[in-house]
């Protein structure tokens, strides 16, 4: 029922990773979740979820009438979450058609998570205009914060119920040494509501190459907090502890 777009403006800040992990956690918590790859043309959600070999149909097939929306959904390898992939053929999809598919999925699922493309062009508009809520992902770097600020300003022109911020790849050791902005400082600069703090985690990088999530990853707890905040509309963020094994 809830349609949430995960966006950032800047590429490479972790939108797809956060979409995948948030979707998996919500699904593991018992919610019915579908992840929609809004990054058409440069689609990677299927790879992040480890289902690239299971894709039979994608969103362009749905819109062309070659299959029904539910036939195009692929099952996640770890949870009961479903994924609606896109392909290079999907690049010309209109915002209205995309919204139609998202709305039809929202009737059945508790959460529709839309992985937004980088940039603020047509793909951004297509993904954002299909959603009711937005999660902006940034890292504590100057360039990512600048792009997040532009995206937040753009989002204010859409009729969204809620816009929240996730700060990804924080390093507690650098923050403690005063060499990196904390997530709260980043949110303060952006005047945004912080909903999640995801620590920099090598296990995400390593396991995502296999399309999997590491059960023992230090970021697991952070994703659990993010998932709880999204599901329950709370804003309790937990600052990740310093990693003693890597200085």
């Amino acid at each position, binding site marked *: 029922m809830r349609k949430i777009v995960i966006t950032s403006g800047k590429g490479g800040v972790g939108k797809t990773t956060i979409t995948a992990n948030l979707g998996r956690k919500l699904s593991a918590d018992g919610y019915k979740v579908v992840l929609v790859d809004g990054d058409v043309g440069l689609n990677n959600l299927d790879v992040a979820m480890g289902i690239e070999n299971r894709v039979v149909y994608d969103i362009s097939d749905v819109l062309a009438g070659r299959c029904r929306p539910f036939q195009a959904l692929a099952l996640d390898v770890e949870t009961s979450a479903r994924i609606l992939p896109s392909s290079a053929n999907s690049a010309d999809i209109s915002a209205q058609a995309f919204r139609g598919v998202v709305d039809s999925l929202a009737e059945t699922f508790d959460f529709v998570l839309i992985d937004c493309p980088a940039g603020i062009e047509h793909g951004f508009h297509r993904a954002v205009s299909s959603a009711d809520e937005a999660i902006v992902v940034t890292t504590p770097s100057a360039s990512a914060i*600048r792009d997040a600020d532009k995206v937040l300003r753009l989002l204010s022109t859409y009729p969204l119920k809620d816009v929240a911020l996730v700060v990804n790849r924080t390093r507690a050791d650098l923050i403690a040494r005063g060499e990196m902005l904390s997530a709260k400082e980043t949110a303060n600069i952006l005047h945004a509501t912080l909903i999640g703090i995801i620590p920099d985690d090598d296990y995400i990088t390593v396991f995502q190459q296999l399309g999997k999530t590491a059960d023992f990853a230090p970021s697991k707890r952070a994703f659990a907090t993010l998932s709880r905040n999204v599901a329950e509309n709370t804003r309790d963020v937990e600052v990740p502890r310093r990693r003693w094994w890597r200085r």
Partner: protein
Amino acid sequence: MRFKDKVSARIRDMLTNDKLGLSDGFMTAFQADVTHLVKDYFDVSGQIDVKIFENEDGKYGIKISALADKINTFETTFKKKF
């Protein structure tokens, strides 16, 4: 100033410039106008520093700082001579 405070100040300046659409031309013109105005009132020594920044609460601050050797005296109204 700590490293992250420098970064924070830099980002805030950057975002302010983005929001205001502040170009180099804008700042040059604004600084020239402010300098012209301030020099009417003060005998300014050195450069007049003009800075626009964003506060914690999202409001914009305009900071003009300069050193002056003296305050110019002038009369704002004509004295009638009878």
